[in-house]
C-alpha cells in the first residue's frame, strides 16, 4: 500500500479512535430521539448535556452558553445573522479581508442587502492594525466578526484587544475560532469574546458538527427556526452520535492541549526550518511568532502550487495550496493577496498543517521529498533564470 503522510489538518482531521468508540453505541442500540417522552429516547438528552459540558470545559464556558450546530459554517451564519436580527436598527459590520468564506461571503451578501461592511486589511505578515479597527467603528456598528487564527497561514489576531474595543463601544464581538479551538488554550470566562464558532472536524471529531458559544446576556435571535431544541436557539433533531463525538473530542483536546505547544510545534518548526533552509527559492507566508503551533505556509517562488501538490500526492503526502489552480478560481488565495504576497510567490504557496498524530519520521519524509519535486518543476519552468538569480541572492545572504 502507498504510504500516507497527512499534513492537511487545517482542512480536516482524522477522527480520534476514542471519539469513534464513544459514538458507535449511538448508531446502534441508542438510536432514540432525545426529545421523546420515553426513557429510551429521553435518556439521550442527558448524554447531550454531558457533551455540552465537555465542550464548555474546553473553552471555559458554562454549558448553557453552548449550542450545537452542523459545523463551523453554520455557527458563523447563526452568530452573524442572529446578532443582526436581534439588533435590527444598526446596519454596519466590521470584519477582515482574510476571513474564511463562511464569514466573508456572508458579509459580502449582507453588503448587497442593506448592510454596510468594512473589511479591514492586513499587513505583509498577515497582522491587523488595531488603529484601523478603531477608526472603522461607527455609531451604527452592530457587529465585529474577526477570526482568531487564519486557516491558511495560522496567523493569530489580537482577539482580546479587539473584544475590549468592542465592549467599550457596546458592539457584539463574534470570533471564528474554528482553527484555534483545540490548538490554543481558551478561557471565555476571562475573555472579551461574545460569541465563538468552533467546528468538530478540525479537532478530531467528525465532519458536520460544531458549536456556537454565546456569552450569557448577549443578544441573539435563532437562525434555524422549528422545534424547541437547544433551548429554542437552534431547531432540528440533535445529531446525537456526532454531538457525543464532539464532546469526547473536546475532552481529548483539553488533555492534549500542552502537546500542541510542545510536540506539534517542534515538528512544525523542524519541517519549516529545514524546507526554508534547503530551498533557496522558498519564503514563509505569515508572521513567524504570532501563529498557530501546527501551521506553516511556504511559497516556492516561480513554481506553481498545484503541480507541487500533485507531485507530493504521488509520494503520499497530503498538503494544500493557495495557488489559483487549486482554489477553484483563477486568482490565488484571497489571504495571500490581502497580505500583498507577490504573484511569483502566491501561486507557489503550500500549506502544511500538522496534528498530534504526526511523527518526526513523517517530517523527515517530507523534507526528503521536497527538494527533488521543486527541482523537477524548476526544470520545466520557463523562469529557471529568475529562480537561479533569486537563489544566488539568497545564498549570498546566508
Amino acid at each position: 500500500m502507498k504510504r500516507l503522510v497527512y499534513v492537511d489538518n487545517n482542512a480536516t482531521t482524522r477522527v480520534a479512535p476514542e471519539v469513534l468508540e464513544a459514538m458507535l453505541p449511538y448508531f446502534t442500540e441508542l438510536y432514540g430521539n432525545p426529545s421523546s417522552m420515553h426513557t429510551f429516547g429521553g435518556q439521550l438528552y442527558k448524554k447531550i448535556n454531558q457533551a455540552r459540558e465537555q465542550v464548555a470545559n474546553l473553552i471555559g464556558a458554562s454549558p448553557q452558553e453552548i449550542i450545537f450546530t452542523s459545523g463551523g459554517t453554520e455557527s458563523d451564519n447563526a452568530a452573524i445573522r442572529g446578532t443582526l436580527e436581534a439588533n435590527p436598527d444598526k446596519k454596519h459590520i466590521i470584519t477582515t479581508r482574510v476571513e474564511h468564506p463562511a464569514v466573508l461571503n456572508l458579509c459580502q451578501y449582507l453588503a448587497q442587502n442593506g448592510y454596510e461592511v468594512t473589511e479591514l486589511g492586513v499587513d505583509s505578515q498577515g497582522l491587523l492594525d488595531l488603529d484601523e479597527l478603531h477608526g472603522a467603528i461607527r455609531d451604527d456598528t452592530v457587529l465585529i466578526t474577526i477570526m482568531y487564527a487564519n486557516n491558511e497561514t495560522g496567523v493569530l489576531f489580537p482577539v482580546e484587544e479587539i473584544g475590549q474595543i468592542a465592549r467599550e463601544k457596546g458592539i457584539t464581538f463574534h470570533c471564528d475560532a474554528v482553527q484555534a479551538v483545540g490548538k490554543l488554550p481558551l478561557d471565555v470566562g476571562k475573555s472579551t469574546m461574545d460569541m465563538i464558532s468552533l467546528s468538530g472536524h478540525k479537532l478530531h471529531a467528525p465532519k458536520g458538527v460544531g458549536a456556537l458559544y454565546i456569552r450569557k446576556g448577549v443578544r441573539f435571535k435563532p437562525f434555524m427556526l422549528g422545534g424547541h431544541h437547544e433551548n429554542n436557539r437552534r431547531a432540528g433533531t440533535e445529531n446525537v452520535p456526532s454531538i457525543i463525538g464532539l464532546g469526547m473530542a473536546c475532552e481529548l483536546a483539553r488533555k492534549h492541549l500542552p502537546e500542541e505547544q510542545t510536540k506539534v510545534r517542534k515538528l512544525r518548526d523542524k519541517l519549516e526550518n529545514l524546507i526554508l533552509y534547503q530551498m533557496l527559492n522558498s519564503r514563509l507566508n505569515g508572521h513567524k511568532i504570532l501563529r498557530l503551533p501546527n501551521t506553516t505556509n511556504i511559497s516556492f517562488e516561480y513554481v506553481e502550487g498545484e503541480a507541487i501538490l500533485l507531485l507530493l500526492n504521488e509520494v503520499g503526502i497530503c498538503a494544500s495550496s493557495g495557488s489559483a489552480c487549486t482554489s477553484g478560481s483563477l486568482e490565488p488565495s484571497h489571504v495571500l493577496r490581502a497580505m500583498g504576497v507577490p504573484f511569483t510567490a502566491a501561486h507557489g504557496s503550500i500549506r502544511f498543517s500538522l496534528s498530534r498524530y504526526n511523527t518526526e519520521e513523517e517530517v523527515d519524509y517530507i523534507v526528503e521529498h521536497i527538494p527533488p519535486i521543486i527541482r523537477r518543476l524548476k526544470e520545466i519552468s520557463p523562469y529557471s533564470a529568475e529562480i537561479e538569480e533569486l537563489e544566488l541572492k539568497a545564498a549570498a545572504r546566508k
Partner: protein
Amino acid sequence: MWDYTDKVKDYFLHPRNVGEIKDADAVGEVGAIACGDALRLYLKLDKKNGNRIADAKFKTFGCGSAIASASALTEMVIGKTLEEAEKITNQDIADFLGGLPPEKMHCSVMGKEALESAIANYRGYKAAPAEEGVIVCKCFGVTDVKIERVVKENRLTTVEQVTNYCKAGGGCKSCHPDIQGIIDKVWEKEVKPVAIPAKPKKMSNLRKMQLIQETIERDIRPVLMMDGGDMDLIDVDGNTVYVSFRGSCAECAGSRVTLKSTVEAKLREFVTEELVVEEVNQ
C-alpha cells in the same frame, strides 16, 4: 481534487519534450506568472524536408493540466508542416489528452496560442491574432479578439465558459457585462437562425398587462404580505413595469433592492424575459 484523465496524469508525471532548443527556428511565448501560467514553445524545422517540424520543446509554469497540455502539443506537432500544425485547435489538444476538466480548458487554449505565437514568430509577424484587439478583461489582460475567438471556436454561450477557456472574467468580475456582450454579438450574427428557436409570437400589450397583473396577485403580493408589506402596480410602458412598495418592506433600502429583483424575476418567469422593473417613490 481535479478529475484528470490517466493521460493527463501521465503527461504531467512524465512530460515529453521538456527543454529548450538553442537554435530554434520559432519560439512562441504566452501567459505570465501573474496569471498563474506561462508557456514557452520552441520549434525546429527541417528545411530539407518541406519545412516539417523536426523537433519541438517546451517550458511551462503552471498546474498539472498546463504541463500536460504543453507536452501533448509538442507530440502533436512533430512531423507536421506549419500549415498542418496551424490547423490544430485547443479542442484537439484536449481530445488528445482524453479531455480536460471544464475549468481547465484554458490550459489547452494556452497551448494553441503558444503554437500560433511561434508560427507568427517564424513568419516574422509581430503579434499572433490573440494579441490584437482591445483589452476587455483587465485582470487577465484578455482582448475582445481573443474572447470572440474562443467563443466561436468552442461554441461558448456563457460568461462562465469563457472564463474556463481563456480566464477572462475570473477576477474582479467587472468585465462580465462586456464578455456577455461579445457572446451575444457572436451568436446574434452567426447562429441565430439555427441555434435559437423561432421567437415566440409577439405578445399584445393587452395580454402583457393581464399577465403582469395576474402574476403580481398570484405570486408576488401574497409573499410580500406575509412579511407585512405590499406593492402597487403603477404603470407599464413598453417592457418597463413601474411599481411602488408599501409597508415594512419599503422602509429599508436593502430589502427594496432585493424586492425589485425578486419581483422582476417572477415577472420575467411568468410574463416575458424582456421585462424590467422600476421602482417609483410615491
